[in-house]
């Protein structure tokens, strides 16, 4: 008899039911109360976090659902990104979305449930379901401004490329399933190793499977060369959704990558056991991501496009820790994503507030912002400097640990390249700050922020400063997640 430990999926069940409740509540109250729905959604996410604290630790459904430290850590990131995305979307809901407010929040929650399942997936089937449940609501959300041509076009591009990449991923998974004869990821590793030792000429089939899975997950991560969709979709989608895409969905991709490549295929990075090393492939892609992301970001005039290219570069830095495949590697990737949550969500929250008040996304229109809204300018400066990795903000510690893991694993060339591109990145982050503080004064508008957006900004800044000065608790938690892989 299989074990159904339903206690472990109580947080997911609750969040799912809460999403249905939000949609029904909005229908029942005739869409009169956008603010109340928003606060209910935020409350639901907070309640899920509490439930997650109460019910975790263990394995359920025959390895299909693993509630281990890694899952817990990333679920916190997902809930945090959903919380901050919902918090910064109140003005958008009030101004631009008239008919489908409850569905907006409901879909964000559905997508979050998908990410949570993905983080817990110990098996190819649940991994695939989690990945699709994450992306399909995001297709709809990216196209949410129905009458805005740019938003619909962004949704369309995300749909075509996302569905295409998940089809490639599925084919890769089918090859892995066929070669190993199991869908359980840990069993898969053992069976593949046995198969490889006993059968000649199986290496090419395995390499093909690895490349297809890498392409499928690479699209979700916006890793070069699978990044083409990111700038367009980030620019066109509603800004809080862009933030969710760049943090939540990306962290989901990172955890899926860890589950498949470290848990399922890591034996194959070992040269004695297996000559096919995904580490070098991914290291080259990471190098390309850092170079292309940072160089392209230099030319951008639109803040959302700039942040899109910057997030392509950031995933390159994350992959430096990933290819290390060690305790410090896994831990530093987790820590990096955790800090990235605060910095990127915060930067996009400022972009949302700015767009709600002025209707503009261009970097040039930020000129003189520090004179009319000093607080928000200071916050934006902190977020951008943390993304660039300036001490004492948390972004510095995150980059430091990732690079340390890279050096430890012998990827010195990659770390040197990463340091060089990080210097380049300082230029375009500082450009926005220069605009806000040192540009000749424009006739500027004072930014009005709703209470919820203020909460988001304060969480972001507090997270960056506290975890920058005092990174131990989160870092220890992140290093603890590496136990999952037996490091």
């Amino acid at each position: 008899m299989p074990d159904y430990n339903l206690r472990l999926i109580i947080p997911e069940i609750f969040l799912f039911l809460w999403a249905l409740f939000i949609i029904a509540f909005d229908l029942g109250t005739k869409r009169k109360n956008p603010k109340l729905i928003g606060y209910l959604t935020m409350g639901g996410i907070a309640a899920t976090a509490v439930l997650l604290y109460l019910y975790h630790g263990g394995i359920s459904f025959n390895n299909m659902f693993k509630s281990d430290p890694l899952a817990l850590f990333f679920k916190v990131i997902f809930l945090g990104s959903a919380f901050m995305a919902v918090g910064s979307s109140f003005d958008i809901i009030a101004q631009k979305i008239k008919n489908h407010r409850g569905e907006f929040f409901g879909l964000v929650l559905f997508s979050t449930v998908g990410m949570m399942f993905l983080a817990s997936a110990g098996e190819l089937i649940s991994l695939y379901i989690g990945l699709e449940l994450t992306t399909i609501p995001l297709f709809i959300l990216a196209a949410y401004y129905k009458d805005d041509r740019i938003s619909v076009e962004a949704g369309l591009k995300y749909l075509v490329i996302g569905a295409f990449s998940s089809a490639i991923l599925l084919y890769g998974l089918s090859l892995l399933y066929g070669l190993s004869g199991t869908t359980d990821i840990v069993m898969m590793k053992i069976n593949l190793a046995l198969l490889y030792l006993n059968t000649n000429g199986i290496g090419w089939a395995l390499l093909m499977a690895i490349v297809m899975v890498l392409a499928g997950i690479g699209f979700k991560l916006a890793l070069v060369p699978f990044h083409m969709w990111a700038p367009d979709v980030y620019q066109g989608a509603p800004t809080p959704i862009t933030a969710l895409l760049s943090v939540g969905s990306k962290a989901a991709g990172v955890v899926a990558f860890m589950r498949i490549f470290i848990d399922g295929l890591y034996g194959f990075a070992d040269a004695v056991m297996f000559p096919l090393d995904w580490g070098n492939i991914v290291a080259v892609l990471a190098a390309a991501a850092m170079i292309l992301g940072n160089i392209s970001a230099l030319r951008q005039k639109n803040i959302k496009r700039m942040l899109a290219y910057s997030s392509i570069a950031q995933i390159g830095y994350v992959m430096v820790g990933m290819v290390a495949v060690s305790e410090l590697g896994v831990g530093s990737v987790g820590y990096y994503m955790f800090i990235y949550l605060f910095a990127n969500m915060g930067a996009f929250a400022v972009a949302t507030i700015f767009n709600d008040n002025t209707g503009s996304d261009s970097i040039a229109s930020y000129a003189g912002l520090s004179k009319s809204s000093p607080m928000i300018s200071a916050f934006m400066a902190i977020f951008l400097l943390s993304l660039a990795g300036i001490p004492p903000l948390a972004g510095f510690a995150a980059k430091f640990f990732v690079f340390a893991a890279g050096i430890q694993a012998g990827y010195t060339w990659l770390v040197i390249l990463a340091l060089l591109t990080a210097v380049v990145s300082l230029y375009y982050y500082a450009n926005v700050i220069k605009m806000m503080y040192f540009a000749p004064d424009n006739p500027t508008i004072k930014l009005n922020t709703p209470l919820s957006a203020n909460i988001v900004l304060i969480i972001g800044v507090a997270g960056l400063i506290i975890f920058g000065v005092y990174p131990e608790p989160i870092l220890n938690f992140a290093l603890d997640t590496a136990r999952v892989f037996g490091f």
Partner: protein
Amino acid sequence: MIPIGHFLILSAMLFAVGAAGVIISRNLLIMLMSIELMLNAANLAIIAFSRMNNIVDGHVFVFIVFAVAAAEAAVGLAIIIMIFRNRESINADNFSLLKR
């Protein structure tokens, strides 16, 4: 008993046709159909492997993929209808507002 290789070759061909369709075709509906073809190619491979290894996990996998494909097609068609309302076209070459 048909050998496993036949199924795999057929599925690889279907997958290649689907992938080529997505890349070459400029019509959004055909692109969506090609993606469905790719998913079904993977389904065929999964079922063939499942029979080869004599385990039923693959059958469950295929059911799940059916459901996901239906959801994807539904959302995809809805977005295509939306873009048709905005632009009166479903030719992918016309959608380049974001390439600036």
